[in-house]
């Protein structure tokens, strides 16, 4: 997808000029120019703050006094946030401290998402590199595998397996880990293919180096940075999918909380204490939106793109 801002043949100089067309010499103070370029976009800053808050919650919750995600206290049940000094974010239907549960849930959900993404990245990059580097039948086989993979509805698959083995966190991680690797594979395959015939890859082979060595030393480093970018943008998607599964009861099992399962439990009390469902949702929103905003710095996503004008693109 092209994102032209001006037609190619116009050589509009990007370098600021020392003389203007009338010949007068003008110089902008260097400081002002530099500042214009270095400022981080407000989205990036906002996103980082949001992510920071969630990470703080996940990592730091256990350190707070009164941390108790499992202890029930029916007499203190259904407290709203900021009403009870002992329970900053209130309590749920069984009197459990919401702050503690949210903290643990964040930790758990993020941990699962991370595990899935790592699995996806490893499998996808590995298969993709192999397919791109070796080509031939291996490539066809892996590509077919990827096509079949794409053609299967994952949620249903997980439901099917869960019907057999019973739901669990491990199952969810394994299923998601084994089904969302195609994006990584595609990118690493293309990269490996384009690098395969470059001199710096051929040379060590002619000198007697093995394929494994070449892949490790030359292909992998190039692929790695791309993989990181995909992973960064992917983790948000995985969190959303994972939460949906947990909402359906297919993830980590109670009493261990997760965002999805907390929302499911809280849904029953929407009329009386909506906070039970809303709080985990807010935390999830902060995470995913934060991840989206920060990752926009590295991807081409955003609000560029041509608009229809007479002379061609805007």
């Amino acid at each position: 997808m092209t994102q032209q801002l001006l037609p190619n043949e116009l050589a509009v100089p990007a370098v600021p000029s020392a003389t203007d067309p009338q010949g007068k010499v003008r110089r902008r103070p260097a400081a002002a120019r530099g500042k214009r370029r270095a400022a981080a976009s407000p989205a990036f800053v906002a996103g980082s703050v949001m992510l920071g808050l969630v990470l703080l919650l996940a990592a730091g919750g256990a350190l707070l006094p009164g941390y108790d995600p499992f202890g029930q206290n029916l007499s203190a049940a259904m407290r709203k946030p900021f009403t009870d000094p002992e329970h900053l974010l209130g309590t749920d239907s069984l009197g459990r401290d919401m702050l503690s549960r949210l903290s643990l849930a964040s930790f758990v959900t993020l941990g699962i998402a991370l595990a899935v993404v790592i699995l996806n990245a490893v499998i996808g990059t590995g298969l993709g590199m192999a397919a791109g580097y070796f080509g031939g039948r291996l490539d066809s086989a892996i590509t077919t595998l990827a096509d079949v993979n794409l053609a299967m509805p994952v949620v249903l698959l997980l439901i099917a397996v869960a019907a057999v083995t019973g739901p669990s966190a491990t199952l969810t991680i394994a299923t998601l880990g084994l089904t969302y690797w195609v994006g990584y594979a595609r990118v690493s395959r293309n990269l490996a293919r384009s690098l395969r015939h470059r001199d710096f890859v051929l040379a060590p082979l002619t000198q007697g180096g093995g394929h494994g060595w070449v892949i490790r030393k030359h292909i992998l480093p190039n692929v790695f940075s791309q993989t990181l970018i995909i992973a960064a943008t992917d983790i948000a998607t995985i969190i959303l999918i994972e939460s949906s599964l947990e909402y359906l009861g297919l993830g980590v099992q109670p009493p261990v909380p997760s965002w999805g399962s907390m929302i499911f439990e809280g849904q029953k009390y929407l009329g009386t204490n909506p906070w039970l469902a809303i709080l985990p949702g807010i935390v999830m929103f902060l995470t995913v939106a934060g991840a989206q905003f920060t990752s926009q710095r590295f991807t081409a996503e955003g609000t560029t793109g041509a608009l229809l004008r007479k002379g061609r693109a805007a």
Partner: protein
Amino acid sequence: MSITYSGPLLSVQDLTIEVAGDDGPVRLVDGVTFDVHQDEVFALVGESGSGKSLTVLAIMDLLPPGVQIASGRILFRGRDLAQLPEAEMRRLRGKDLAMVFQDPMSALNPLQRVGRQLAEAVKLHASGLNRKQTADKVHNLLAAVGVPDPKGRAASYPHQWSGGMRQRAMIAMAMAHDPGLLIADEPTTALDVTVQAQVMDVLAEARRRAGSAMILITHDLGLVAEAADRVAVMYSGRVVETSDVHQLFSSPAHPYTAGLLASILGEGTAGGRAFAIPGSPPAAAERPIGCAFQPRCHIGSGRDECTSARPVLTLLPAPPSDADGTEHSAGRAAACHFAGESTLHLLKGQPA
């Protein structure tokens, strides 16, 4: 137009086109002036970046966004196009003003049949034609530009046509309503050499039949020699010389023109080094004060007027008739403080 208008068909007067730059507006086209007369082929010559494409895009009001006309007039049959509202311009485009672009592959919609795109051109300015009439017109247009089997070809897609054929289709599209002025922006540059001549023939024939004047943009002087009646040479957004084609080649008035001519490889240069004008044109934002060509000019080094004052395009007196009695017309203009110094011979190292 009920009033008979006498005067040049197109008169570009002091046209300046700007774009916003880091330190204020940058003049991509700087005070360009020339006239195009009825029925003539007017060549606009220059290197890439000289502003020739922008000039003609301005005539059609198809400048890219961010680029606009800062000042000047574009008089077409007496009306200033620069002041016309868009609705009026739309009426002129495709009917009185038409354009053929450089790359016919990208200039055609790849997902529509060629015939349909031609039909669109026809229907835009001829209401009341039914399907059959439109189709017939399309086939006639294609036949007129020498496309074999027009009916069959019209039903096919651009990628199924060869480059030369595609350009013929573009010409057919542009000539659909016999425009008064046809602008051809490097019409053969993207084509094979063998096909170039054919397309130029088609172009010449089409415009002759329609009685259109043509502005031909090119950097190929050979093409200019063959096809043009009059020429304007552009350098760094300015017109540096206008002349009829014979005079341009026999006695160029501007040193840049002389340099261009000298760099054409021809007889007498075999075995020696090819000549090229040293240096390269300035970036639009860094045009020097005074003459833009001065830094590279072989007669302007060390001359104060050239570095301090920008030369204005001035009409030159008609030179004396040639030895064989051929008269030269007036109407030659050059933007040089020392126009007419026998530059061509100087470059070739021959005595003046």
